[in-house]
């Protein structure tokens, strides 16, 4: 025990065959950039799956144990009636080496933030209020370190808002152009066929 129940990367405690999962857990060796205690719903679910596998499969010898790997950070919530999503690394204070693109709808109930690495332009994270983005698309961009300018031009791939909802991606591109003096164009609008081709 420390601040939580200490577990190894297989979610096993120091007592053999005793596992822990969920909000009570403190990881001895969290993945790079992740915290030892991450008490949110989604990590709890992923830990549950890992721990169940390691109890049912590994202990009985049917399968080698699986490491707990939560992948790229994501979370979502709803504040009153405004939905919130985050994909990737978005800090409360913007680190020195990061840049940010922040767009807000005039109505005040929608906003999109893209954080990226200043030097290389690699996309680092998405923060969304009142707008839905597609988890797998954002995940793939972040995992690949896709340059922010490519992300912006393809941004329609990420849009997960219901049909007939206005698409704001071109406004983000325009904002980026204003701030940097570039002249990028949005090449991809919302659409599942393009998403499937991208994810394949």
């Amino acid at each position, binding site marked *: 025990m420390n601040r939580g129940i200490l577990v190894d990367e297989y979610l096993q405690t120091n007592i053999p065959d005793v596992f822990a999962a969920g909000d009570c857990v403190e990881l001895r060796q969290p993945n790079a950039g992740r915290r030892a205690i991450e008490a949110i*719903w*989604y990590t709890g*679910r*992923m830990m549950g*799956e890992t721990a*169940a*596998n390691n*109890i*049912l*499969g590994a*202990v*009985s010898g*049917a*399968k080698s144990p*699986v490491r707990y790997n939560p992948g790229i950070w*994501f979370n*979502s*919530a*709803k504040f*009153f*009636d405004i*939905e919130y*999503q985050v994909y990737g690394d978005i800090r409360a204070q913007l680190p020195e080496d990061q840049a940010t693109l922040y767009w807000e709808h005039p109505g005040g109930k929608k906003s999109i933030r893209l954080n990226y690495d200043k030097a290389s332009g690699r996309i680092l994270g998405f923060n969304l209020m009142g707008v*839905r983005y*597609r*988890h*797998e698309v954002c*995940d793939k961009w972040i995992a690949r370190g896709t340059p922010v300018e490519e992300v912006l031009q393809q941004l329609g791939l990420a849009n*997960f*808002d*219901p*049909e*007939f*909802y206005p698409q704001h991606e071109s406004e983000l591109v325009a904002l980026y152009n204003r701030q940097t003096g570039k002249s990028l164009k949005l090449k991809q609008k919302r*659409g*599942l*066929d393009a*998403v*499937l*081709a991208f994810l394949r």
Partner: protein
Amino acid sequence: MEESISLATPNPTLTSGKQKIALALAGLGVLLLLVVWAAGNAFAPVPVLSASLGLICAGVWLFVREEYLTRPEGIKNNGVWFKSLSARGIWGWLAAIIITGFYTVLYFFPENWLTGLTALFSPVSQGLRGKPADKWFVYGSLYTLSVLVLGVKFMYKYRHNRYQLIRTVSVMFFQTGFSFLIPAFLQVMNEPEYYFTYFWPLKDYYGSPGAVQYYGHATSLSVYFIAFSALMTFVGTPVLTYFFGKRWYCSWVCGCGGLAETAGDPFRHLSDKSLNAWKIERWMIHSVLVAVVLLTGLLWLNSWQQGGVLGKFSQAYSTAYGYVLGMAFSGVVGVGFYPLMGSRVWCRFGCPQAAILGIFQKKKSKFRITANGGQCISCGNCSTYCEMGIDVRHYAQRGQDVVRASCVGCGICAAVCPRGVLRLEGAGSDIDQRTEQLRTVHIRLEDVKILS
């Protein structure tokens, strides 16, 4: 009563004083209709009808303003499991009995049981069609009125959601235009009455030799009516369902769907989500499809053989189909059971059109409801508010796209999801693999062994 400090207060105020007054006004309007019905006399049709409809509209309007406009936009289903009307309480049962009773009289009793109401609606009928109202005109008027008034209510409830707004305008438009005004105008123009938004097999008559014979010769135009129906049955249905799924009809156009989506909205959570209900649903809906195919086949065979094959039997079979399915099931049970079994009893368990659309949707359609990565938190709102009784959460939890024959594409699951997990959409490149991916399941059942 002690004041609870729980966030989920166990003693919520469900209906405010103002709302009770509003409901009383609307109730008074309905009561006026019931009095006219019971008395068999409309007294002074124009003032009485105006008063009744005025009271209903005003009551619903006041209720809606108080219910939705006093709070921020967003879906408000607070207390649906506690309110008597929407939780199979006394008011729910009473509503079910009144609606079932009305439909029973409408379908199975002689016309003179409704003389009060037909007299009441006659001025409207005279204005629209140039002849007095019959019971079907009364029914059509009340039906359209329900779709319009409660459609407006629905639009206030979901006013933040453009998909819901546009879809509701669509069902209101098709009900008013294609199921009410156009059939009336056709009669004024000496054309036979026709409903362009109903096709075989839901409207089994339009596929029968009798209809082809009649509309083929009635007027110079009417042959195109029946040709349009045939085109919709054989070409329109598969093509539109390929592109948009079943929703192009069931939740955007169909009149039965229109009433379910508007008047039926407060009851959508009452649909049975159990696996057994799903099994019964598949047996029933496909049996009805077989029954209607048999019916139409028999009628054509008979017409071709000049009544030589099973002439009397096919007549009796046709009559029985009309009574049991056309009237008792789609009418009496279909609407009367809204407050008991949810708004889509007929659509889910009986409609042969839904059965065919469902087969196309499942086998060859771009449509699916996509689950967004690993975002589902298993709250179950999607399953609760699915009027077709689909356990949407089962799919969302495992990150699996939803492809179900019964899904009418109303989009409420996506609207009530607190994490924006679900999206109705379409793509042509993966039709046969729509449901294969399980985004959040990494360990298969075969990989693990349960310790004994």
